[in-house]
């Protein structure tokens, strides 16, 4: 099978998606060109538009095409309680479980002393600005239960303390080393109910 030219390049590019190996990428590429050229065009256009327009919410840093995301813009939600998560996917999982009616703050990572990821890369300067205004009464630290997740929670907990804001860490239910994305909502609600002050 020839892998040169645009087709080869497309197959290679599709491999950047999670769970897609060369075999699957090949199947996807052939499907798009043999059966669904229109779909392919639509996909390409949407992708281009999305990449152009989707950025970070100016308040919570989740992915959105507006300057303020739906959750931050929703006046029925409690903006004084903010849940700190590592990724937009984590926020999404918590939303699915429907156990939380506050706002989020998305770090897009976690503090990593050896990986060179510091507070600024996680937008913590932005969070601190918000803490300083006094509008936030409680932070719920829902970073993953990994060592780096714990280190991140500790740091943000200290930050909250500096501004006299209550900080709690989700505790029970999250298995050691567990990633939120993979946890069912029952476990998650347990984790939220069992949160404790740090």
């Amino acid at each position: 099978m020839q892998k040169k030219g645009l087709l080869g390049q497309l197959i290679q590019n599709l491999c950047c998606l999670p769970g897609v190996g060369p075999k699957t990428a090949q199947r996807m590429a052939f499907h798009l060109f043999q059966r669904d050229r229109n779909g392919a065009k639509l996909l390409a256009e949407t992708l281009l538009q999305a990449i152009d327009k989707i950025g970070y919410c100016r308040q919570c840093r989740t992915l959105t095409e507006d300057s303020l995301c739906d959750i931050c813009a929703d006046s029925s939600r409690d903006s004084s309680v903010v849940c700190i998560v590592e990724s937009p996917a984590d926020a999404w999982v918590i939303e699915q479980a429907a156990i939380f009616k506050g706002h989020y703050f998305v770090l897009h990572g976690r503090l990593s002393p050896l990986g060179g990821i510091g507070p600024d890369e996680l937008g913590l300067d932005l969070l601190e600005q918000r803490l300083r205004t006094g509008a936030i009464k409680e932070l719920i630290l829902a970073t993953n239960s990994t060592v780096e997740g714990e280190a991140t929670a500790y740091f943000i907990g200290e930050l909250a303390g500096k501004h006299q804001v209550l900080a709690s860490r989700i505790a029970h239910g999250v298995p050691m080393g567990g990633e939120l994305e993979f946890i069912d909502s029952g476990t998650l609600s347990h984790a939220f109910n069992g949160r404790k002050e740090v």
Partner: protein
Amino acid sequence: MTETAVYLQPAFILQQRKFKETSLIIDALTRDFGRVSLVAKGVRKARSKTAGLLQPFIPLTMSYLGKTELKTLTDVEIIPPFVQLQGIAIYCGFYINELVCRFLHQYDPHPDVFAHYRKCLSCLSDTSKIETALRTFELDLMDAVGYGLQLEYDFHNQKINPLKKYHFSVEQGLIEALDGQFSGKTLQALKLRDFTDAQVLVEAKILMRTAITGHLQGKPLKSRAFIKNIIKDYKNE
């Protein structure tokens, strides 16, 4: 390299990074084989029992095999009981992990370093002992890898006098000086790993920083800069 198969080797994870879709590459400190690179295949899948165990600072036993430098992890178990590091101690843990990564070559066996490392971790879980634990580990690590500090004699081969003061440089070691940063008393206490005197801890920190920095060949420790940046008003390393 011939095929090696290692069973139930006591080990700690120093660093890990994501590898492909569901795997991890692990830098582990083993008791008998030193620093080892391992690939843990398929552990980042949902409900993987192994992923939770593959964290730094937890005493583990690891089984692995492989022909190349990168071995394949086949089994991992926790050795209970263990204390999980909390708060600032986690950052100190990252610091000693980085020290081990920087000063130990891969596949260079150092059971002594393994023992010092394990002891340091258990001391770090007691916040009041953090400084003592770090200084002790730094001294022991330097000794083990051949950068040990000569704490008994100065540059001119004179026995260290507890009543005198000394300068220190990596090249020359200790040199007696009236305005020296380090007292002979401190140096003698360090030899004995005796940190009961608060002044000893203060001077030891400066001394070890100078010694370690001198051996890093201009490439600073990431964790040190990190800790300095984020916890500006905290006194510990």
